[in-house]
């Protein structure tokens, strides 16, 4: 649920990075944090276990320029990917405006990708939302690893709706900003559509 504040002239939007455990969601946020100017972003919060696995969520507030005199601010969240943190994932997904699904390209993580995608659909449905109605993009991460599945094959398996998809190596930052900018644009266009009555 976006929050449009006429007093501070801000548009606030919530983006969630979803996907299987150890897929690179936190790495995406860390890279964005490192590469953005300090005056355009706030503190990055990582609620993680002692072994650096996300426990509840990571959070990064980011200013992404001005639109019609309004500052556009994105609140980036990650969910914990590990299967048993399901309740936390559902909480983070509430009122989401846009999603980046971070898939792990390695062949041995295919089941985990599919399971996580299903899990996301189920949680959205519990909030009365269909995945096809949410602005979202797909990121195939870890393209540099030897067991990475062919991108076309990943696409056939994980992206039946044909949403925008990106190859990434989040540890090196490859594909990270392309993914973010695209989902940001889609979300803003969807908001605009809702207000101008287009596409109904």
């Amino acid at each position, binding site marked *: *649920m976006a*929050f449009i504040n006429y*007093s501070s002239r801000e548009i606030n939007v919530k983006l969630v990075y979803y996907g299987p455990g150890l897929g690179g969601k936190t790495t995406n946020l860390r890279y964005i944090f490192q590469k953005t100017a300090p005056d355009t972003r706030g*503190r990055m919060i990582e609620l993680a276990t002692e072994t650096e696995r996300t426990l509840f969520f990571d959070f990064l507030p980011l200013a992404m320029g001005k639109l019609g005199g309004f500052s556009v601010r994105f609140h980036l969240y990650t969910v914990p990917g590990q299967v048993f943190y399901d309740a936390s994932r559902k*909480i983070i997904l509430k009122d989401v405006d846009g999603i980046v699904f971070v898939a792990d390209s390695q062949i041995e993580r295919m089941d985990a990708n599919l399971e996580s995608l299903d899990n996301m659909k189920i949680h959205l449905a519990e909030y009365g939302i269909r995945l096809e*109605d949410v602005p979202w993009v797909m990121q195939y991460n870890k393209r540099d690893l030897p067991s990475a599945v062919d991108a076309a094959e990943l696409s056939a398996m994980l992206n039946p709706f044909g949403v925008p998809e990106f190859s990434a190596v989040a540890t090196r930052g490859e594909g990270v900003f392309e993914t973010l900018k695209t989902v*940001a*644009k889609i979300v803003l266009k969807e908001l605009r559509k*809702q207000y101008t009555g287009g596409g109904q």
Partner: protein
Amino acid sequence: MMLEQQMVLFEEDFEKIQKLCQELAAETNAKLVFLVDKNGQLIATSGDTGTMDTTSLATLAAGNIAATSGLAKLIGEKEFSILFHEGERDNLHLSTITERLILVVVFDHRTSLGLVRLLVRKSSRKLEELFAEINSKKGTREQNTIFTEITDEDIDNLFND
């Protein structure tokens, strides 16, 4: 199907909300009062925020309420509408208002938990009424938001630099 209705806050409403928060801060002698939506967006603050990271505070307050609501449901409660965290110097009082809002009060020894609870309840009622009024005006005003004034090209250009 559309995603959930967005929250739009106009200046005149913001001023009323801000005034209620200021009154609460003054009456309780609290250090800070925050109004946050359950999604973690900061709506209003009152008091000297100084160097405090208000964005993080809003997000974590919302996360805290969301996590305890999950706990509540597990034991068959609807939610825990009040949370209190006691520190060595400062304390945090969080309470939910309507389905959407969280009122956060940061206070120290200059006031008491009893007084904070009492006055938070009073302010909550006023905020509930105010948000009911804001929501009732919604339909007519949302036709004319920022999103009707910009184009898809403006959105594309946002990331071109």
